[in-house]
């Protein structure tokens, strides 16, 4: 018998006592089976949720805003079940490791890192929890269905994210093209102004140097700056801040 299975010894003991106690004991056994089955069920599906959260966290094009619809329903169901398991009865019936995992999940708040960490622990219970008899329950099958639907929805979300990436890349190229033109012109002007310094300039050359500040190139720079601002406004309207953080022009 493994160490983890040993942890269930006291449950089995309690169940034996409950059986001996008649109908009340049968209820407790049924309840404990249900707690056990629910805990296993959550442990089996925790990884799917963890993947959603981790992917949403890692990819600004998915982001927390994409954790909605069926994914959100599945997460809500999962957490509700987790809270139920951690109820007084569950708390009494579950081993310490499992109790701690569900408690961590229920107190993780909204921090995706904390929730992911807790989900990882719940997922880790999968091989340790062994229920006496599988007792199918409507609630359990419902969670499996919700996770399946959530996974399907998540695939769609990821496909949309890929499209969004392409669109963002197109926007980035447009924005950066203008920025490169602008930087290039600034360098040209910088170099030209360098020629205006430290040399003996004729009056005409000095005038031409002064004219650089208002001449066609300066006007072009002003126009490109205006265009850049305009494009940046457009980008801010279109893309969330985490996505815009990735806006880098080489």
């Amino acid at each position, binding site marked *: 018998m493994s160490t983890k299975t040993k942890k269930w010894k006291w449950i089995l003991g309690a169940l034996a006592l409950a059986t001996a106690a008649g109908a009340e004991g049968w209820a407790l056994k049924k309840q404990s089976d249900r707690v056990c089955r629910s805990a296993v069920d959550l442990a089996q599906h925790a990884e799917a949720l963890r993947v959603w959260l981790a992917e949403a966290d890692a990819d600004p094009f998915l982001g927390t805003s994409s954790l909605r619809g069926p994914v959100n329903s599945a997460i809500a169901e999962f957490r509700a079940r987790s809270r139920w398991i951690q109820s007084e009865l569950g708390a009494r019936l579950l081993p310490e490791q499992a109790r701690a995992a569900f408690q961590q999940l229920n107190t993780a708040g909204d921090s995706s890192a904390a929730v992911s960490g807790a989900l990882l622990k719940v997922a880790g219970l999968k091989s340790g929890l062994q229920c006496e008899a599988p007792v199918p329950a409507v609630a359990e099958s419902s969670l499996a269905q919700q996770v399946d639907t959530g996974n399907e929805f998540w695939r769609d979300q990821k496909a949309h994210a890929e499209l969004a990436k392409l669109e963002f890349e197109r926007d980035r190229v447009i924005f950066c093209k203008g920025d490169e033109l602008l930087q*290039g012109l600034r360098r040209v002007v910088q170099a030209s102004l360098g020629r205006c310094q430290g040399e003996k300039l004729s009056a005409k050359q000095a005038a031409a140097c002064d004219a650089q500040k208002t001449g066609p190139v300066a006007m*072009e720079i002003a126009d490109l700056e205006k265009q850049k601002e*305009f494009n940046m406004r457009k980008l801010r309207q279109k893309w969330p801040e985490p996505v815009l953080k990735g806006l880098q022009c080489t």
Partner: protein
Amino acid sequence: MHVTLLSIALFFFSFAANAADKPRSCERKEAQSLLEQGMVLQGELESERALEKYKACLAAEPACQACVYESGWSYWKLGQWEETVAAWESVLAANPSDPDVLQFLPTAKENLSLVKVKKIPTTFVSGVKLGARSTPADSPLSLLFLARRQSYNRTPESPLDVFDADIQSPKSVHFSADGKKVYVNSLEGGRTAIFDALGTEKLGLIRHKFTEAEAQFFLEGEKAPWGYSFAKSVKKPNEFVGKPVEIEHSHAGKFLWIPYYRRSYDANGAMPSALAIVDTATDKIVRVMAVGPISKYVKRSHTNRWMAVSHWGDNTVGLIDMRGKKPDAFRHEQLLVVEKKIPAKEMKGDRDSNCGFCVRGLAFTEDDKYLFVTRMKGGGLSVFKLDPKGPAMPLYLGTLFGLVPGPRDLEINDKGELFVTCNASGMVMRVPWRELVAKLGEIPADTKYEARSLRIKASDVSSAKVYVGEGARSLRLSKDGKTIFVTVNKTSELVGVDVSAMRIAARIPVDSYPVGLELSPDGSQVWVTSQGRSAKGGNSVGVFQARYKMQEIVPSAHGEDEKK
């Protein structure tokens, strides 16, 4: 013919001193020696050092008119027109019938008036104002004349206008594969100047001068390929100054291929020319390969199997096998003959115009199975069938006449469309190349090699054309394939053409007379080389910024473009 006209400048240096009945000379031995040293230096376009010799010559013999006359040419090449005029007026005062001075002094005065008085002669446009913009102003394509490097005005007003003595009859320009460097071939200067991508800084210079010390670059020694040979009178065929014409890169930008118009000793362009291979990591020449007479254009095949070099001088195109990572692995492959090769004995007279069919432009199809060659004289497009993956010999399919009268440059895009400029008519034509190959298929298979030609009308194929201006020269397609840029030599303009509509999108004046052009890899810059003509204009490289205004607005979230 552009090179014909330009070559006048070349002849100045080669023969001007001998144009009078007897060579110009000084009386005193020391002065004569200094005169000769100066002329050698000027021949290498070391104008300032040449002037030092002439000044020393005049110190040794103040009355030596030969040194005064030659100093005029050095001042010319430095763009010091007042000094040129003063020197030659002094020569004319001593000899009012000096034929050379009588011939060239008016042009020097004209150039002086251009630079000083700003009176631009109608015959050419030079000193175009920086900051000029293309027309029409509301076009989606906007060009801005941003900067210039030139060797005709030593004291330009604008800080964006830079005097550069290495810009001598610039023929072509080429961006490095990464877009960080720009190479400008100074044909008469025998050098390639290297600039940063914005043209603000000169990064280096490649001199195409070969002496005994460079013998190791000639792996084949003094042997010429494809049955060519050097005249017996040439004792050291690999010691010369090369006149760089065009540039192509290979091996992802690692090597540059620069064909020479001719070797400096081969005044008539009747002997094998050469092609330099430059390692772009060091910007040094690493190999020189002999090629046919008057090598002009150079084009890399898409499968990187061949580098093709057109030989203006004798109706041929050389194919060089460039498989292999190192230049010493490159080898001469076939010599393609366009209809009929010109025998050496017929290579006489003015070789700029006495060039047979004057083959120039080259374009491989996307799959390298066909090579198109332009024939500027007589107006033909010749086609060779190639076997890029196998050993089959190239096959001359024939020549199509009747599309444009003087095709010069051509490009093929990834949609199978061939674009060709016509120097004579000023047209740019677009035509599906497969239709041209299909037309050539109508020539009976048993037709003799030299008779394989077909005259068609533009309406026989799905062609579209646009008039850009007489003297349409180089052509470049933008990376997205939506715009063609063309240099128009006679009107001294850079013209942008909207490919889908084959309509002019923008035109802007450039220093006369433009010949070459190149787009930066990101498409934001167009560099134009103005080579000049008949000692007028030219000696200038213009940097133009290109903006595609419809393509620079970030679209709205729901695809509805807002107006700026």
